[in-house]
């Protein structure tokens, strides 16, 4: 029996601009991507020292998730009931290239640890204490039907009660994050979880 599912929050970050629920809340094109990430962190007054150790993929995902979950009522769920379904095209290639450079001199374990795409999911889970299922897929484009199908299954079968899902990709200066929070609770200004609603730029 398919449950009623809703997109209760949504964050997009691309072209060095941050959108929360469809609204442009911050943009910084005066600097490179590295500095952009730091400027988002500072602008939103986040405080999480581990952020500074992360690679750019994890930073992008962490920032998007931090905004996405701003009004998330964690107490409503057990840790095992919340999980992630994420995907991208470049896996961890952005960090792979940087790590590969370090091999020539002194291979750095602090870089190597980020040479897997699912680490961004790990960082989000550590931050928010999510212990439920997480999965990372690599595909050429953001396949919203596939994402919907995966998340539907998880929530319909009660494997999860809420899912942080979407696309997080970084390679050099190119980046894109599209994160959705899917829950079974209807809130004010939420949209039904559908492919149409995921693909639209509509405000929530």
């Amino acid at each position, binding site marked *: 029996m398919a449950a009623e599912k809703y997109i209760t929050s949504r964050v997009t970050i691309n072209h060095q601009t941050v959108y929360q629920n469809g609204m442009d809340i911050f943009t910084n094109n005066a600097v490179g991507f590295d500095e952009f990430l730091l400027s988002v962190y500072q602008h939103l007054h986040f405080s999480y020292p581990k952020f500074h150790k992360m690679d750019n993929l994890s930073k992008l995902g962490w920032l998007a998730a931090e905004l996405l979950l701003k009004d998330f009522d964690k107490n409503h769920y057990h840790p095992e009931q919340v999980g992630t379904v994420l995907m991208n095209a*470049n896996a961890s290639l952005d960090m792979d290239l940087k790590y590969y450079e370090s091999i020539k001199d002194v291979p750095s374990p602090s870089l190597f640890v980020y040479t897997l795409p699912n680490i961004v999911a790990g960082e989000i889970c550590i931050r928010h204490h999510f*212990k439920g299922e997480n999965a990372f897929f690599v595909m050429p484009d953001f396949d919203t039907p596939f994402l919907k199908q995966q998340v539907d299954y998880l929530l319909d079968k009660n494997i999860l009660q809420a899912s942080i899902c979407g696309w997080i990709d970084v390679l050099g200066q190119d980046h894109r994050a599209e994160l959705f929070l899917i829950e079974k609770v209807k809130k004010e200004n939420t949209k039904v979880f559908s492919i149409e609603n995921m693909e639209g730029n509509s405000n929530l």
Partner: protein
Amino acid sequence: MIVKNPGLNPDVFIVGDNILSPIGKTTDENLSALKHGISGVKKNDEINIVASLFEWNKIDIDKSYTKFENLLILSITNAIKQSGFNIDDQTALIISSTKGNISLLETEEHTKDLNKRIALHSSAKLVTDHFGFKTQPIVVSNACISGVLAILTGMRWIKSGQYENVIVSGADVVSEFVLSGFKSFQALSDTVCRPFDKDRTGLNLGEGAATVILSKNKKNENDVKVSSGAISNDANHISGPSRTGEELAFAIKKALLDAGITAHDVGYISAHGTATNYNDEMEANAINLAGLQKVPLNSLKGYYGHTLGAAGLIESVIAIHAIKDGVILPSPGFTENGVTHPVNVTTEILNTPIKHALKTASGFGGCNAAMIFSK
């Protein structure tokens, strides 16, 4: 996507399989070698590690594909041939790998085109086109649980009526990239690894590939089922496991629940058992928390090394055949218990009927996986 036959919850059978490793090109060759105690883990003087590596000049490489893609193609080809399977438009493909073609960074000039060529989805497309799949492939890249997660994804597709058959294949190659990384973690042992043993000193790397063909239709009477699977996250640390093992235990218990069985029904555990201090300690805790400490258990990492994205698949194939043959292989390198809450490590070949087998896996990023295979 419309869920076909919403009322049914079909069983998912493994109707074909292959292991392609340094100790054998087919599942049968591998099983035979393992039963004779042959291990792929050896000292390699050239790169100064102890690992399970292919002798590449002994493999029939198609030069139009990379080594990694060759492993996938050869493995799938054999699985299909051995089972007499036909790929139709109801057949999907799932690929599992952690680093795929990363060694191209070592041999090719780095350009924008190389970025695209290195991408796992590019390899998946090449494999799809080689076999003439009519469906779009999916790539699972989730650290060392990729193999199990890929089987789980395929299983769910069949259970929800998305497809009738799914070929799940995974591979990983030992590159300078990966080797230097594990070295920098000081995680490698300079001898054959010793999972769960008191004197374990770390892991061995390995390369390999494996394939399982999942189908809602049984092919042979003794085909084994994938009954269930569950994934969790430690939410603790990105490269060190949970201190308690309770998150892996949660995944194990969920898998048991979904399979409709209890701890009592599990006849064999194929553990992740990488032989690092932390993993084995955590995994043993998890197994105890799930009430499975008496179940005969082994880790195959002493035969294959840690094959990363292929591990979940290679080791699942062994578990599947353990059920079929009623044989549990000894866990190499184990002489004395080295974990706080002991588990029942097998030290010699055990002939015993197995109704249900548990496969566990854990990986960087704090992920855990548990899967039940059943007669």
